[in-house]
């Protein structure tokens, strides 16, 4: 609730009664929300809010949030399962789809009540939207203006390839690329801007150039005798490469130019979604915090009815519910719950700091909360955000505890709990949990046998002795399909000892 004292109780003049919505009402609510958002200095892209039917919403879900997508069976699978669970009432289609683009596109479902529409506008069109525009990861890695154009380019290109080379060939290629999507991301380099026209122009040049580069690499005649020693010593690539798809796009000997282009498309889309994967807690927490704050602000101004608030709070409460670990519905930590609680908590630390808060957060305790939240939103990702802002009070409120499960020990151990001795450990551990580098196996391109059988060796750098899962063999087949020559993978532990070795022939 907004704690600013509103001394003379304003006359209650609700914007609307009843649950029916109309375009006039949407407009009215949006103006009010915009006014309040401006009051809190939320900076957003232009907003485009589309009213759609539930079927269209299922469509939107199944294309993983891309408003325009190329065709692939996996989106059909997604569609079927979404449709199924929606028909059975297992899931409500609410406010999850919002496109990181400029204008920022959010969807309203026609079946929803006025309350839900206002909630979605506040959550998506103001909350997520301002996050997309402000957060440093999105600013660095995505290009909101160019993405729609690029997706159109991608869809047309894939469709063209299907016509020329057959649906099946394209589908197989996309299967393999999708499998490696998480390994198609540059973590440190900034990608160039996206633009459809440029993309199309460059695509043709690139096609020729790339092919010539690859040819150069593989043109190598058997090394001359004098230089034989030397050639064997040259490692390729000189450094291990983390971006598998990039490496394949540039170096795979047997890919056709059009195949390289499709690898590139999948890679660029993976790059576009990469920030979202790193800011789940923050992004959802931020959007949830703002729909909660904006609507409460309107309520205190007397512009929303009690009925509106009841419906809103019920929905809000469901979203931020965190089942405890022993519940049979425990799915892990709910990013909405954690993110919302953290932003609320930061605001509390700014406005009503306790002695403990002053000790832990001397910089922000008592500062201007709007300013502090804005800084937090702009400059952090989940991992660093938790490491920086998770307070002892919140750890106590959520009763967080850290567990260590070591397969070399008979029992699992409670490493830390919500007490003085444990706050830091729990916080570090939780932050670590959101480090994508820890969640996904660290696999890199290690070596290509340039002068021998052209095989590719991937290296899995083990973390905490954790092995690769059961899909590795299948994954290796996908890599082999792209590489065109045998592919090996080996797991190497921290002592440089090799553990697993698999090989896949063409």
């Amino acid at each position, binding site marked *: 609730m907004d704690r600013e004292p509103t001394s003379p109780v304003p006359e209650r003049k609700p914007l609307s009664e009843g649950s029916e919505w109309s*375009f006039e009402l949407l407009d009215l609510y*949006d103006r009010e929300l915009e006014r309040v958002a401006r009051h809190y200095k939320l900076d957003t892209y*232009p907003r485009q*809010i589309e*009213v*759609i*039917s539930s*079927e*269209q919403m299922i469509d939107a879900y*199944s294309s993983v949030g891309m408003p325009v997508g190329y065709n*692939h*069976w996996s*989106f*059909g*699978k997604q*569609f*079927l399962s979404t449709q199924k669970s929606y*028909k059975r009432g297992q899931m409500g289609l609410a406010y999850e789809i919002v496109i990181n683009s400029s204008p920022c596109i959010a969807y309203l479902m026609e079946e929803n009540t006025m309350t839900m529409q206002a909630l979605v*506008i506040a959550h998506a069109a103001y909350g997520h939207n301002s996050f997309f525009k402000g957060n440093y990861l999105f600013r660095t890695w995505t290009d909101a203006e160019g993405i729609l154009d690029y997706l159109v380019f991608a869809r047309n290109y894939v469709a063209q390839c299907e016509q020329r080379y057959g649906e099946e060939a394209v*589908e197989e290629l996309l*299967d393999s690329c999708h*499998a490696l999507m*998480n390994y198609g991301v540059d973590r440190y380099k900034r990608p160039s801007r996206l633009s459809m026209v440029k993309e199309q122009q460059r695509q043709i040049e690139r096609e020729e150039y790339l092919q010539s580069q690859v040819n150069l690499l593989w043109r190598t005649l058997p090394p001359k005798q004098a230089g034989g020693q030397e050639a064997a010593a040259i490692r390729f690539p000189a450094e291990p490469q983390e971006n598998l798809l990039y490496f394949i796009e540039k170096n795979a000997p047997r890919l056709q130019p059009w195949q390289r282009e499709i690898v590139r498309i999948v890679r660029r889309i993976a790059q576009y979604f990469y920030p979202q994967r790193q800011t789940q807690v923050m992004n959802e927490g931020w959007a949830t915090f703002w729909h909660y704050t904006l609507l409460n602000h309107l309520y205190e101004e007397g512009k929303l009815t009690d009925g509106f608030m009841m419906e809103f709070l019920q929905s809000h409460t469901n979203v931020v519910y965190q*089942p*405890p*670990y*022993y519940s049979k519905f*425990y*799915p*892990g*930590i709910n990013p909405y719950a954690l993110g919302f609680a953290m932003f609320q908590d930061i605001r509390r630390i700014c406005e009503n700091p306790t002695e403990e808060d002053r000790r832990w957060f001397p910089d922000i305790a008592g500062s201007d909360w709007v300013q502090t939240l804005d800084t937090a939103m702009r400059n952090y990702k989940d991992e660093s955000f938790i490491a920086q802002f998770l307070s002892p009070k919140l750890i106590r409120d*959520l*009763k*967080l*505890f*850290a*567990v*260590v*499960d*070591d*397969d070399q020990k008979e029992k*699992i151990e*409670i490493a*830390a*709990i919500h007490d003085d001795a444990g706050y830091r450990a729990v916080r570090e*551990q939780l932050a*670590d*949990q959101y480090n994508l580098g820890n*969640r*996904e*196996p660290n696999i890199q391109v290690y070596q290509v046998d340039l002068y021998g059988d052209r095989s590719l060796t991937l290296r899995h750098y083990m*973390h*905490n*002795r*954790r*092995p*690769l*899962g059961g*899909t*590795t063999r299948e994954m290796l087949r996908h890599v082999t399909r792209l590489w065109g020559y045998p592919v090996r993978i080996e797991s190497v532990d921290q002592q440089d000892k090799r553990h697993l070795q698999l090989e896949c022939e063409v």
Partner: protein
Amino acid sequence: MSQFVDRRLSGKNRSAVNRQRFLRRYKSQVRKAVTDAVSGRKVEDLERGQEISIPSKDLSEPIFHHGSGGKREAVHPGNQEFVTGDQIDRPPSGGGQGGGQASQDGEGEDDFVFELSKEEFMEYFFQDLALPDLVKTQLAATPNVQKVRAGFVSSGNPANLHVVRSMKQAIGRRLALSSGPREALREAEEALEELMSAGRGDCIEADELRAEIESLKARIAAVPFIDTWDLRYANRTEKPLPSTQAVMFCLMDVSGSMDEKRKNIAKRFFMLLYLFLTRNYERIEVVFIRHHTVAKEVDEDDFFTSRESGGTVVSSALYLMHEIIQARYPTADWNIYAAQASDGDNWDDDSSRCRALLEQSILPLVQYYAYVEIEAEEPQGLWLEYEKVKAAHKHFAMQRILTLEDIYPVFQELFKKKVA
């Protein structure tokens, strides 16, 4: 302020292509599921959607992920009784994993379940099935078309010239082209009238007016009465006639030896054939002929429900069928299909008569003749005779059905698409 866009009316089937691709990719699994569903379903129930489930592992999209083992650390909410340093037993079946991993692989065990619409279900059911020599050669070569009126066009042959339309067109053109001169003519005549009434009919002005009137009249007269672009011709386009009509004869033995269960199997067989024909022909008639010692044409209800007892004379039904074809279904207009179900019982000397009838009178008329023998202990007299027919005629097929589950495979076998 935000831009609101109403997209409700724009395409809602954006995922249709992807859905089709999914179904195509998992064709074999879906078809297996459909086959199972068909054998378990009631016949009247055939045309509706179906829930299909495919083992999730068959359609996984793999990614690299961590397997179990090694050292894992995780943070969970809702601590009740633990204190730092507690040692706990591992929860069974890897439940102690970190939350992220658990939810990622969590759905691995369940089947992937989705709805197949009625249309999709039936398409799968009928896929790859086509009756041999589906349409009569003659019909296939020159499809029957009917000429139908389709408005008017500005070019055509003289026979199709539409006089009334052309004249209408001409009137319009004449009016349009002459309206200017007419107006001028009217004004000139009025002016001349004025001059005349003023008694100045001989002055120069009046002469000029007269000259102008003459020239205007000439111009009006020069507008052609009818011109080539006035001409309109009646237009006719060719509309393909629903040439594909078929009649399906259902012949069934209802003698005492055909019990309820056998009839049920036969019923399914007929229904499947019927459904298949509805996919391929625009119009289908069905003739039900039941027989014991005598044959009778009946309606559908009677066909399946009535019970008769006594012996069996199969040829009676064949005679009746032949008569009906002669009387009502000239082969030039009808594709004729016949499906016969029996338990194989027949009077001994009748079977050879059946063979003769089939070979001489019936098979030359029909597109396809299918015979199923239901739950016969061992091949009976009729079966042996029919085998001879089969050897000589390509469009005669026969099968034995033992259980309900056999129906669909039998059906497929009978009407398998011919590889060209």
